[in-house]
């Protein structure tokens, strides 16, 4: 059947005298391009609708009157096409002449010169002399936006920018303004873009009309020296990024790569967020606290000191008194060695990471129940969904390029249902369900009930059958007050009758106050709907660090701590002893609880800033201050580093090699584009391992990866030398993925419908910022310049009840303290809910929340018992 379809779609056409077979439907231009025949274009852009405005792509098609715009003409069987004849050249030259009528020809001062299509085609077709004597357009270049320079004198009105912004990015932030010769491309305000700053319009513009301010007038394309392919390290999407290095070895700019993951897209962090690598506040020298002050010391002294202090504490109080935080910003190699140092060098299972707040629990329960292969879904395939359900997640901020693919799905007709708050999908959703927080998970349960009324689960996963038989669910009727049953049933019907459903969830689900029950409901929904599952990881390498055993109860592989075979194999390979399997390691928050109680005395923090990034950060900071030894390995002096006894400067992803596993479980590589002071994380750890008597001897990060391939039966299928290739997707050979390390028995206590947790006052929902998502972003000047001020957003009714007017300064308070924040009123927000900008590490809003540890996963679920608002004085 498929074969026949393929045959039917095959088109044979002749281009410049040669016959080609192409798969249709396809435009003539694309058919030519696929066969390496290049036709000049100005307004064509792959992956969006043809526009046919510039007429550069004219070709002659036999039997057709007039020259044809090949970008908008469908290829047909038997077509005979000529792309380069004198007649066509004359026509193209004439089109260029039109474009140049108003063009200022200011190439010497234009940043685009050297990679400008207008310049290149003018050289090619020789439109040097114009026959028109119109006045040039004069309009001063607009530099009012902090990041994008807009020059309308040079614009040729190809509208690529507005079309990529609307059709690809889904932001619709710029448009054609005015008409006739006064037309220009402008953002809504006419000055600042105030957009998502994805950079797509800058990449699309064929001339020097939209340009990045980050390398204004100091960028010449021909100065580019080496170029490297790498992977953005801001989030779990793992976009391919192309690094352009200047001849002097400094970073020129980053541009999106056509990788399978992002296919030419980036978000603001990836496109504009690289200045931090040359920030003057980078750490350059190791520091040791002497007489209360951190003072620079040599690497030798620092590492010797760290090793001896760790040994002292281990020998005096045992491995249990030491702990470490791994980092999703660091590579597989780094995390593997940190874990090796802790387990084999120090005899401690106390290792965890920020993945505890999200992916760790999600992948254990959802992957464990469904089979891990089911949680491997490709970002690019999201766009082909027929229905998408986002569960308390805004993919546009948590995994931006995935969010853009949800928008693309909506634009191609998918039903997009946003459950919970998802402001990024505001213009791209069919239905939104926003129950009050206390009941939201119960409503999700009712949705599952309603789906089960329509669709019976197929397939034979025993564990899922058992789960569906025992999981208690409310009915839509039970939840009628929280969400009208008709809405629930309508959504259930949409989902149950769609062929290709995608489900998205992230940290909010992992930290649900309703406990593991909500995660099981999610897994069951995925099972019944046979849906693709997208589990968002907010760090670039969360899967990688979890695979490397950076969890208290897991070994690298990953394998459970109790797996005798794995223990034997690892102990043999390392020639060292693992801590006893009875030694229950401490999870993320337990580490701080134990530090507060004096049971953990030494903590090794790699690339994390718990003093700002964890809930109840006041408590966390107090616990950090009690430690006898705090070692922080980072690139900046974070709030945590300020409290440290030793600070070790590391390198960023732009300055080093290594590997990540992204949210799709694809192996991705990073490369060293520029040099830097500091040491790579793995090499610091390698030296410490040796100092503690372990065999290390790694010369390059690849050596560490080779060891990983021996330890992990799953990684042995992934080949670091083959990064980005087909073999680097996990699990490499389809299959079910490694069978659950999950014992349903352990989940049995959580099958009942959880009680509704009541609190005083209104609901608080934290809105994640798109631009500032961590320490590195906070040191990127460009991202700071576009970041919005923190706001408390609410609807008119709530504002009225507190007599709040737009722009008022408010005092938001919880039992943990008060914070000043500006009010913003949006009549379309739901009742009784205040949306606070979660600036994460900047304003430290998490300080005002307490946390509960979720049973089974130990994820910290933030909550407040009392919340209130006061008008500021």
């Amino acid at each position: 059947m498929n074969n026949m379809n393929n045959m039917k779609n095959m088109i044979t056409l002749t281009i410049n005298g040669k016959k080609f077979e192409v798969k249709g439907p396809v435009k003539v231009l694309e058919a030519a391009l696929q066969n390496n025949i290049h036709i000049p274009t100005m307004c064509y852009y792959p992956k969006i609708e043809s526009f046919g405005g510039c007429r550069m792509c004219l070709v002659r098609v036999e039997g057709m009157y007039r020259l044809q715009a090949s970008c908008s003409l469908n290829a047909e069987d038997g077509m005979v096409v000529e792309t380069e004849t004198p007649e066509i050249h004359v026509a193209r030259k004439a089109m260029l002449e039109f474009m140049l009528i108003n063009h200022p020809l200011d190439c010497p001062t234009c940043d685009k010169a050297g990679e400008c299509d207008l310049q290149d085609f003018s050289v090619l077709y020789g439109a040097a002399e114009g026959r028109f004597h119109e006045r040039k357009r004069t309009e001063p270049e607009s530099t009012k936006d902090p990041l994008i320079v807009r020059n309308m004198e040079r614009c040729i009105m190809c509208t690529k920018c507005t079309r990529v912004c609307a059709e690809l990015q889904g932001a619709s932030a710029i448009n054609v303004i005015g008409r006739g010769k006064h037309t220009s491309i402008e953002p809504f305000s006419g000055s600042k873009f105030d957009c998502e700053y994805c950079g797509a319009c800058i990449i699309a513009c064929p001339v020097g009309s939209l340009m990045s301010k980050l390398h204004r007038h100091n960028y010449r394309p021909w100065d580019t020296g080496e170029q490297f392919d790498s992977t953005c390290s801001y989030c779990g999407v793992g976009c391919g990024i192309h690094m352009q290095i200047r001849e002097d070895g400094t970073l020129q700019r980053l541009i999106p790569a056509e990788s399978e993951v992002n296919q030419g897209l980036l978000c603001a962090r990836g496109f504009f967020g690289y200045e931090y690598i040359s920030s003057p506040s980078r750490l350059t020298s190791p520091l040791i606290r002497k007489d209360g002050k951190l003072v620079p010391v040599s690497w030798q002294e620092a590492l010797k000191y760290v090793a001896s202090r760790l040994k002292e504490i281990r020998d005096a109080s045992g491995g249990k008194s030491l702990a470490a935080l791994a980092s999703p910003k660091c590579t597989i190699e780094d995390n593997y060695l940190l874990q090796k140092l802790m387990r084999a060098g120090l005899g401690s299972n106390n290792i965890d990471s920020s993945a505890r707040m999200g992916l760790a629990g999600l992948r254990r329960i959802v992957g464990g129940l469904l089979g891990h292969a089911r949680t491997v879904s490709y970002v690019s395939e999201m766009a082909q969904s027929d229905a998408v359900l986002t569960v308390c997640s805004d993919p546009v901020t948590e995994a931006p390029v995935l969010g853009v693919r949800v928008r693309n799905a909506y634009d191609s007709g998918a039903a997009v249902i946003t459950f919970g708050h998802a402001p990024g999908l505001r213009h791209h959703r069919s239905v939104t369900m926003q129950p009050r927080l206390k009941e939201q998970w119960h409503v999700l349960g009712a949705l599952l009930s309603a789906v089960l009324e329509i669709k019976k689960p197929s397939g034979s996963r025993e564990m899922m059958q058992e789960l569906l038989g025992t999981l208690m669910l409310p009915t839509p009727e039970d939840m009628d007050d929280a969400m009208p049953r008709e809405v629930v049933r309508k959504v259930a019907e949409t989902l149950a009758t769609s062929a290709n459903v995608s489900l998205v969830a992230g940290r909010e689900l992992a930290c649900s106050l309703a406990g593991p029950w909500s995660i099981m409901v999610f897994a069951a929904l995925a099972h019944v709907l046979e849906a693709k599952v997208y589990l968002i990881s907010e760090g670039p390498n969360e899967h990688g660090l979890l695979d490397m055993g950076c969890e208290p109860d897991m070994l690298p592989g990953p394998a459970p701590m109790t797996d005798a075979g794995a223990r034997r194999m690892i102990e043999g390979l390392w020639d060292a002893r693992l801590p006893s399997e009875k030694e229950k390691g401490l999870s993320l928050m337990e580490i701080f609880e134990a530090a507060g109680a004096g049971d953990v005395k030494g903590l090794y923090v790699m690339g994390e800033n718990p003093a700002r990034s964890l809930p109840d950060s006041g408590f966390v900071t107090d616990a950090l201050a009690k430690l006898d030894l705090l070692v922080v390995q980072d690139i900046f002096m974070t709030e945590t580093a300020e409290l440290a006894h030793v600070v070790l400067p590391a390198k960023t992803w732009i300055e080093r090699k290594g590997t990540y596993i992204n949210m799709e479980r694809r192996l991705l590589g990073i490369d060293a584009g520029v040099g830097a002071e500091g040491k790579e994380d793995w090499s610091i750890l390698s030296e410490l391992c040796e100092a503690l008597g372990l065999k290390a001897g790694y010369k390059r990060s690849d050596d560490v990866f080779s060891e990983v391939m021996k330890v992990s039966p799953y990684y042995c299928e992934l080949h670091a030398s083959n990064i980005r290739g087909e073999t680097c997707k996990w699990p490499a050979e389809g299959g079910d993925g490694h069978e659950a390390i999950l014992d349903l028995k352990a989940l049995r206590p959580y099958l009942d419908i959880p009680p509704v947790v009541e609190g005083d006052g209104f609901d608080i929902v934290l809105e994640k910022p798109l631009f500032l998502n961590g320490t590195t972003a906070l040191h990127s000047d460009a991202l700071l310049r576009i970041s919005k001020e923190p706001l408390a957003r609410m609807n008119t009714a709530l504002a009225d009840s507190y007599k709040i007017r737009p722009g008022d300064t408010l005092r938001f308070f919880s039992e943990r303290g008060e914070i000043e924040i500006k009010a913003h009123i949006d009549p379309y927000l739901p009742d009784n809910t205040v949306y606070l900008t979660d600036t994460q590490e900047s304003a430290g809003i998490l300080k005002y929340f307490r946390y509960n540890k979720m049973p089974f996963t130990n994820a910290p679920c933030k909550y407040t018992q009392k919340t209130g608002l006061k008008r500021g004085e």
Partner: protein
Amino acid sequence: MLPAEAVSQINNTLEKYPDSRSALLPALYIAQRHVGHLPLDALHAVATLLDLPDAHVRGVASFHVMFRDSPGGRHLVQLCTNVSCMLAASSGLLDVLKEHFGLRPGATSPDNRFTLLEGECIGECEKVPAMLVDSDVHTGLTAESIIEILARYE
């Protein structure tokens, strides 16, 4: 922010259209009628009501001559200057308007009563010259009748 009256009129209008995109022009008319012109915050309010991107709304408003981005007189006069009307000497009428009401194309009369635009064809070519005052059509204009007609608008 739009006056409540405008918001409810826009909401009523919305119901008559299959989707909000197609209700944009009538919504902009309503907003302009109430505010007098379409500053950015009015465009933003319309965009929010229609759940459309702000820049899209501004793009549409800026394309059409009948929408103004700066305050104008109480009445908008659009005198057609396209071919048929031009042949019927509508340019002479421009002089009349200038003399009698101090009106220049693109400008507002000193008493803030009228704003004059050179309009495009309004489909009344068989009774030229023609003009629109707000949304009223007036045809077969002469130097006398145009003065008389405009006198009716306060």
